[in-house]
């Protein structure tokens, strides 16, 4: 039997896609997830800050995602949990395994990729030293603490000041652990200013900017880390090293979209995002395979993840029902000066579209330009997604070129 829409991944993006697929008229919608519970990373994000855009409410991760889990259940989405997808073929054949069905194959009229992302590890950073117990990525530490109920560490150094790092610093502090410092390579904090205040300043946790960890110590368990100042290129400067005694190093040093399945299916990836190249309907380079959420690019807000899931679910359903017309034009969006990446990478130029982009450096009072379109941006930082809505009017005036560079013109820079 062929399913209408199969969604790989039951986190925020996948659930939104499955719900929309049902709403849009797909009959057989299946979500495959390798976890035992639905919701992806959200069940372990017990802090608030979710849903401000989508629900206009301040929710915790479990609260936010349970709304989607409930409505997916009500709508009759089928779930296969504890199920690992091993292979995805371009003709939308999926090979998966679980303990009930064993190894099995599933065919889908359309497939939605919603596998999310994983955390960068120490290996990718090349921090030298020993390899003791007590080094965790922030997400793993969060799971151990907030789902499994254990303390992964007591005297903690956090490397990376993105929101995840800041929030974990606070979690450790709230649990009575001693957070010795949060270390940030860049000259500014990666996370939101409100998180710097609420997670660090309110708890008296020092933030060392323009610093990095240059060595890990301890034979069996972490006994300390050496930190040093870095220059503008990010290289440690000699003579600035000092050792901070601790038993735990938490790494919050970036997220990587998980696209091993996509690569296996021959889907084209964008090296700048690490995710599939998608068009404005979230279709990948392989027909009938759509993608949404953090598998496409790492989002800063779950609300945006949900939006992309809705869009992918809509498109996948139309494809499954034979209603998705090919784009008449394909305009390739390219990151221009000041812009690290743009998603979607392809637009049709016929309909209004929301474009997400990331800037290379923090800017203030800047202008985003795309051909003859200009949109002002008050402030943007590399850690935040800039959302640009290209309205019907803007699109109407757009020149039909095969490529369009999106660039950022800055009038002021903050340090």
């Amino acid at each position, binding site marked *: 039997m062929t399913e209408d829409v199969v969604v790989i991944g039951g986190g925020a993006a996948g659930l939104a896609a499955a719900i929309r697929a049902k709403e849009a008229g797909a009959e057989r919608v299946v979500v495959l997830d390798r976890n035992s519970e639905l919701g992806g990373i959200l069940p372990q994000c017990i802090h608030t800050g979710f849903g401000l855009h989508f629900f206009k409410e301040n929710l915790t991760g479990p609260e936010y995602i349970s709304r989607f889990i409930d409505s997916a259940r009500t709508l009759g989405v089928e779930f296969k949990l504890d199920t690992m997808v091993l292979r995805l073929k371009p003709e939308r054949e999926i090979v998966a395994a679980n303990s009930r069905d064993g190894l099995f194959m599933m065919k889908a009229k359309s497939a939605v990729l919603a596998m999310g992302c994983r955390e960068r590890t120490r290996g990718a950073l090349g921090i030298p030293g020993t390899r003791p*117990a007590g080094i965790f990525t922030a997400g793993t530490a969060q799971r151990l603490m907030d789902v*499994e109920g254990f*303390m992964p560490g007591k005297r903690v150094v956090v490397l990376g000041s993105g929101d995840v790092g800041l929030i974990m610093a606070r979690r450790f502090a709230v649990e009575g652990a001693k957070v010795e410092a949060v270390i940030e390579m860049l000259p500014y904090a990666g996370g939101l200013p409100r998180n710097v205040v609420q997670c660090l300043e309110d708890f008296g946790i020092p933030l060392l900017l323009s610093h990095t960890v240059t060595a890990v110590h301890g034979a069996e*368990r972490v006994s300390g880390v050496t930190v040093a100042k870095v220059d503008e290129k990010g290289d440690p400067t000699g003579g600035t090293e000092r050792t901070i005694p601790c038993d735990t190093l938490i790494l919050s040093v970036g997220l990587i979209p998980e696209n091993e399945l996509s690569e296996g299916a021959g889907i084209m990836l964008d090296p700048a995002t690490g995710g599939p190249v998608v068009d404005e309907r979230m279709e990948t380079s392989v027909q009938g395979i759509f993608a949404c959420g953090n598998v496409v690019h790492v989002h800063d807000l779950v609300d945006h993840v949900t939006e992309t899931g809705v869009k992918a679910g809509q498109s996948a359903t139309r494809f499954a029902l034979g209603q998705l017309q090919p784009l008449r034009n394909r305009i390739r969006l390219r990151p221009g000066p000041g812009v690290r990446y743009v998603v979607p990478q392809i637009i049709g130029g016929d309909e209004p579209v929301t474009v997400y982009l990331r800037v290379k450096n923090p800017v203030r009072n800047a202008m985003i330009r795309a051909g003859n379109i200009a949109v002002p941006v008050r402030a943007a930082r590399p850690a935040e997604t800039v959302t640009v809505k290209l309205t019907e009017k803007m699109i109407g005036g757009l020149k039909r070129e095969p490529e369009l560079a999106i660039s950022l013109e800055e009038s002021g820079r903050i340090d």
Partner: protein
Amino acid sequence: MKADVVIVGAGIMGSTIAREFSKYEIDVAVVEKEADVAFGSPTKANTGIIHPGYDDQPGTVRAQHCSRGNALWHQIAREVAAPFEEVGTLVVAMKDEEVEVLEDLKRRGDTNGVPRLEIVDDEDKLRGMEPHLNREAVAALLAPTAAITSPYELAVAIMENAVQNGVKTCFETEVTGITVRQGEVKGIQTNRGEIEAQLVVNAAGLWADRISAMAGLNGFKIHPRKGEYHILDKKVGDLTRHVVFPTPSPISKGIVVTPTVEGNVLIGPNAQDIDDKQDMTTTHSGLAEVWAGACKLIPSIADKKSMIITSFCGLRPEPDTKDFVVGSSQIIKGFINAAGMRSPGLTAAPSVALRVVDLLMESGMELRRKVTFDSRRKPIDKPMKGSDLSSAQNLIKQNPDYGYVVCRCEHVTKGEILEAIRRGATTLDGVKFRTRAGMGRCQGGFCGPHVLKLMSEELVVPAESITKRGKGSRVLLGKAKELLRGGDLDD
């Protein structure tokens, strides 16, 4: 406790000796100060190459054991179902002067009895054999009998087979003294009590000189020589097909680029003589040296830095005698050394083990063949790895745990993890070495908490007591809320 023979050390040397001994009707005990087989540095952090045998000067003990060891491994690895792949080595010359070194190596190999050595100087052929090889390469020595293995999986497999045939193992058991009376070995003392034995085999790797000194023998010293490595993602596994060496220097065979049996790329090691046998620290400069060395051989590695999964180091046990120290003591009866197993120690191990059996016989111990000896070890089933769908289906039907994938990166199932624990893994690294859970690109980020939970359930111990690799390396430092209830920060 009592045994006929005690082997000190459960690295590759101790394991292969234990398995050879298990073919005879003798009581064998292996003592190891670490928590598991292959946890000592020389076996754990080893390039995993079964060398063909051209490196060593004819006449040395090394040369004698290396080519024989290579041949033996081809058989033993199959018997114990350990990963083993005959991929061949290429020693690459970048300049015409280096071709002379290759010719020397070939002559040496021919003398040592290494089969099918060939110098490839046709550039097209070279390129066809190794597409990413540096375009400046002018020739390479091909040794087709060279193989790759996973050194820790191999050691574990061998020891499992030895245990299956009656060998006893004692882990976290550190030798504190050798009991010698009237010039004869009577046993060993350990942190966990004494073991009476008339024969002690010293396979203590880095610490073999210390064990020897405990018997009053100061014949040799072991110096650690550090080597650092990077391991790259399977995504770039096609960067190399052979084990690719540069032309060797007098101190080292040089930084290698090699495929691993699992399809990753391993690069390293550099060579640095150090003083501290416990110094397991990678260094910024060392890792940079390894990277540069690899790029010289395979230039397209240069832009693959983001493909580094992890970096680590190992210590080679370098004997001051420059050669393996294999023999019975002439001073203390019942003390046998299988020490100084510097490179190519892994390759030579099964040959040295046979020599140790001879030494046992020479010592006067009566060795009767054990009729029940079973040379075959059943590997842990890996249903997600093989290509045989129906046998995987059957396995999952019999035991549904084999359908549940715990480690996403390496596709390791719950069934495999439970089986590893049942076979003796007591630590996270023990599970990792047996199953590869946690060895992939996320480095255990996803499966780590799950593996801890499975270990806690299966071993019936609190999760907080589980260690990464033995005492002192606890992974969790308590339960949540414990500190809020007055728990001690430094406890």
